[in-house]
């Protein structure tokens, strides 16, 4: 079993790899990066990235949850919470 920190990094890295193709301005991705304000990714593109994440982790992330998420870190935290709940 990976430690929480390692697992956290894996989810973070996975999300970054999915977001990187949309990162047209080449912003450095951190947990504080705001998906819409910093990366200028539109709301539908965020939903599409989340769909990839759902299939990758075999979880469902409700649209209601996503609309409250602003930063990459918040997305990472939401995935951990849902993985725990749905496993």
């Amino acid at each position, binding site marked *: 079993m990976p430690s929480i920190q390692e697992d956290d990094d894996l989810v973070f890295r996975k999300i970054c790899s999915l977001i990187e193709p949309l990162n047209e301005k080449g912003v450095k991705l951190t947990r504080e990066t705001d998906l819409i304000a910093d990366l200028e990714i*539109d*709301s539908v*593109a965020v939903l*599409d990235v989340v*769909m990839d994440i*759902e299939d990758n982790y075999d979880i*469902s992330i*409700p*649209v209601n949850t996503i609309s409250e998420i602003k930063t990459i870190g918040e997305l990472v935290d939401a995935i951990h919470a849902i993985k725990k709940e749905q496993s």
Partner: protein
Amino acid sequence: MSLFDKFQNTATQYQALLDGIGRDPFGVSMDEMKGPTRAMVKGKETVLAGTNNYLGLTYDEHAVAAAKEAIDQSGTGTTGSRFANGTYAAHRQLEIDLAAFLGFKHCMVFSTGYQANLGAISALAEPPDDVILLDADCHACIYDGAQLSGAEIIRFRHNDPESLDKRLARLGDNVNGKLVCFEGMYSMFGDVAPVKEIIEVAHKHGAYALLDEAHSFGVFGDNGRGVCEAEGVLDEVDFYTGTFSKSLASIGGFVASNHPELEYLRFSSRPYMFTASPSPANVAAASAALARLKDDQSMRITLWENAKRVHAAFTQLGFDLCAPMSPVIAVKLEGREQAFAAWNFLMENGVYVNLAIPPGTPNATSILRLSVSAAHTSEDLDAIIGAYTALSETLSNQAA
């Protein structure tokens, strides 16, 4: 911090694109209508190829006469809601006629197609235990209806029954009602859903299926009852939603169902209860258009012949088309700038189509969306194909 800050980014981008072409694709005014397929735009006679006038009935003599008579008899507006003081005999009759045409026992008429989906979905699902599953490419009114319900919303991959199956299987035991929302033909690309498989998956998991046939009603199926008729599963649909503002050439919307509980929505659906009912003229025009649709199959045959001709011509020109042949023919461009320029080029050549850019389009594509009408004449189609031929030459010269 101001209320308006959030618009600034989009406004700046939008302005830059407008300055580039000197015309607003999202503010075109048809200054004078010349019939179902032509209008004057800034002094130029323009072929309308970006409408949803699939059967071309907007000037149908029966519908026009019925609408005029309805105004003479019942006035210009109802000034009341369906729930309170705005239900006339004609609203009831149209519900009966639509239910009979589709083969459902119950039907409710709303003021717009948008409100039909908004009203049905928001009333059917409820937090905290109901879940709405919707196709990723669903129209804004389905998303808005889901949001208005307050229930949990889960997206599944577009036209992908397996993706829906996985998401339904993942739901926990404490989920109560499940509602799967999807469309027959999708308006932007003109692609068609695997309706039979999606309904099968929904029912396998005990979910209800809500199918929006806004763009496919009157267009698909031997009798024009939609994609679900074409696939032979009309009676499997739990909630069938549609609009009067496309094939029926009016404005309004409806939900039909065999579940008697549909009637409960009359006192629980806010978009039904708290808005004025469709005007007598709108109802009469929709009723007359429905009668025409039932009696005259030739409009649908002409529509598909026209679609075939345009689709074949565009394929030959080498355009990147978004879907197999249907009355909606969308051409994929390389990006926003190219799409804006191409749209403007067609306007200058007297052809109006819809420019669609992200986030209003699937997969972040920039497209020119064209919709064919049964009312398009051979000359209209020549003009459309001619303008696209010139566009294709311009694009290939730029690429060279």
